[in-house]
């Protein structure tokens, strides 16, 4: 596998478990993932897929009842098990995060100016005057009209879309190498979502920031991303560039997800394709494929043997974890069965 550049974020064998009333539950189960410099990676999954937990672990923000195993390397530096004090030098500057709900992630008691200036003062040691100048410039950069005046407003005085712009401005103040975005447009109306997606694409393009965006919306992925990783039940099901993934999905889950999405440009009167059953919730680790109970292509061994995430023949960048991937994706017989871990 020849990757063009060293990954900016390298996730290896990442497992995240949480201690709940009835024991340890696995949210993320041995995930591998690479983010290459400058790309926009979509991380797609339904509730319980573990998609947000991966981003939180990358920021060192896993909840106290959680334990993280495996490795997350950011620009070569190990994040897992690094003490918080040391992480604070990276978080918010070289790597930053935006969340779904900007109202709950901004401090309601502080003016926007104070919250944003603090970032520059803490990380770059700027004086107040310079910090304020840069904050206003950044608010203009994310197209907040009349930024010089609005900078002194409180978060509640902004609309939902404008608040998300403030969050994005805050995340980009220190010109991070990596921006992690957790469902950044899910709480917004479609016309405002369109504005924010356009803004993210523009900023990523102009600054070369690498972006990982978690979403459940395949439309958002196809509008914004270069590559996509599909998660189910805490495992990576498939990973490919977006054209390949949408045209030749190899995993039955990916295929089902695409087919069950109602869309604006296809037949209207057919019944929607459905994936039977319910999404797998956080539970005890299982020996087989997490999608097996809902899969139309399942066979006996899918329950007992975990399919490894392997490249499809002919496309090293297209990786799928399935014993019986869809035919269309590969003209040659899949080689996956041979490599079942003992």
């Amino acid at each position, binding site marked *: 596998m020849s990757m063009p550049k060293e990954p900016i974020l390298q996730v290896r064998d990442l497992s995240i478990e949480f201690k709940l009333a009835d024991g340890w539950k696995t949210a993320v189960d041995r995930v591998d993932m690479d983010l290459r410099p400058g790309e926009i990676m979509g991380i797609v999954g*339904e*509730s319980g897929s573990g998609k947000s937990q991966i981003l939180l672990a990358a920021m060192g923000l896993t909840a106290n009842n959680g334990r993280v195993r495996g490795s997350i390397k950011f620009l070569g530096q190990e994040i897992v098990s690094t003490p918080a004090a040391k992480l604070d030098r990276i978080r918010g500057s070289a790597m930053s995060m935006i969340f779904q709900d900007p109202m709950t992630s901004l401090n309601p008691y502080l003016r926007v100016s104070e919250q944003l200036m603090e970032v520059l003062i803490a990380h770059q040691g700027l004086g107040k005057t310079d910090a304020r100048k840069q904050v206003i410039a950044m608010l203009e950069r994310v197209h907040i009209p009349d930024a010089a005046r609005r900078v002194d407003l409180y978060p509640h005085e902004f*609309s*939902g*879309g*404008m608040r998300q712009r403030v969050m994005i401005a805050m995340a980009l103040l220190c010109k991070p190498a990596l921006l992690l975005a957790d469902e950044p447009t899910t709480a917004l*109306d*479609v*016309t*405002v*979502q*369109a*504005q924010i*997606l*356009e803004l993210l694409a523009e900023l990523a393009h102009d600054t070369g920031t690498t972006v990982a965006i978690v979403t*459940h*919306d*395949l*439309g*958002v*992925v*196809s*509008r*914004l991303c270069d590559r996509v990783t599909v998660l189910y039940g805490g495992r990576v099901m498939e990973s490919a560039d*977006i*054209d390949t993934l*949408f045209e030749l999905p190899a995993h039955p889950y990916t295929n*089902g*997800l*695409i087919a*069950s*999405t*109602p*869309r*604006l*440009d296809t037949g*209207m*009167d*057919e*019944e*929607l*394709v*459905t*994936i*039977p059953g*319910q*999404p797998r*919730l956080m539970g005890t680790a299982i020996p087989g494929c997490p999608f097996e109970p809902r899969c139309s292509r399942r066979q006996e061994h899918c329950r007992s043997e975990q399919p490894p995430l392997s490249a499809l023949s002919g496309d090293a960048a297209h990786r799928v974890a399935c014993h019986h991937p869809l035919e269309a994706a590969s003209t040659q017989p899949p080689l996956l069965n041979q490599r079942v871990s003992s």
Partner: protein
Amino acid sequence: MSQPASATTSPDAAPILSVRDLTVHFPLRHSLLTHAVKLRAVDGVSFDLRPGETLGIVGESGCGKSTLGRAILRLIEPTGGTVAWMGTDFLGLDAGKLRAQRRNMQIIFQDPLASLDPRMTVGKIIGKPLKTFQPDIKKAELQQRVIEAMQQVGLAPEMVNRYPHEFSGGQCQRIGIARAMILKPRLIVCDEPVSALDVSIQAQVINLLMRLQREHGLSLLFISHNLSVVRHISHRILVLYLGKVMEIADRDSFYRRPLHPYSQALISAIPLPDPKLERQRQRIVLQGELPSPVNPPPGCRFCTRCPKATEICRTTPPELTDHGGDHLVACHHV
């Protein structure tokens, strides 16, 4: 199996529901010195709903779509206008008669878990409306009807004694649908019924609603912000913006040729799950966000964000007019 969606409706049938100039204004503050300030959530909405028809009501948050749905059922009392239910005046009904009519009209909500009483078993929840309308119903019959309703929505009858928290979001929504169906209603108001669900579960619930609608000749008011979902399930579409109707049209006609600039922008804003198409698409990205419904623009409600707005739009509200084939649009520039 998959019938054309229009097969269940006949355009000539008398409407089951006729809404005219419906307004819902919420008073915000009163004082002796200042004017009473009103929030105009719904501001003069008119439409007909035919038996067996699904009308999709779309719009962004704050457009008044949920208020409209609730005002039609009188869960919120309308401030003005009329609602005719099967030809009779619905807003004038006294409490007793209103209650009697309510069994024909049900509602399902967005948050499936929050709309179920956590301390009641699923069987109790589903049976409650029937028990309310037929207090002397025999226990065995009630049980039988509950089981039927559960089977109708694809819930295993063995789960009848479980509690809501034991179910997933999709299953909770099925419970909500069973509760609405048990009275064999004529109309169901569906308020964002699939918005809180995962994609793979969304499709299951949409198919279920479409099947129930076909099999029972139900009329549905399907309220949603998701134009792709609405397109799938509706026969006609109504677009609402700041409490006013922008466009009403037959589904095919609406999606083939949306006429109002707002409808065009809404459709264009939806990202398609297809990267190639996405790259080719011409997009209209609207500036700004929904203005406050407390002080809506005096002319066309959409004029502050409309790429086509001119002087007349700022001063004169456009009438909803027919542009052929029952395609109604409220815009000066169509």
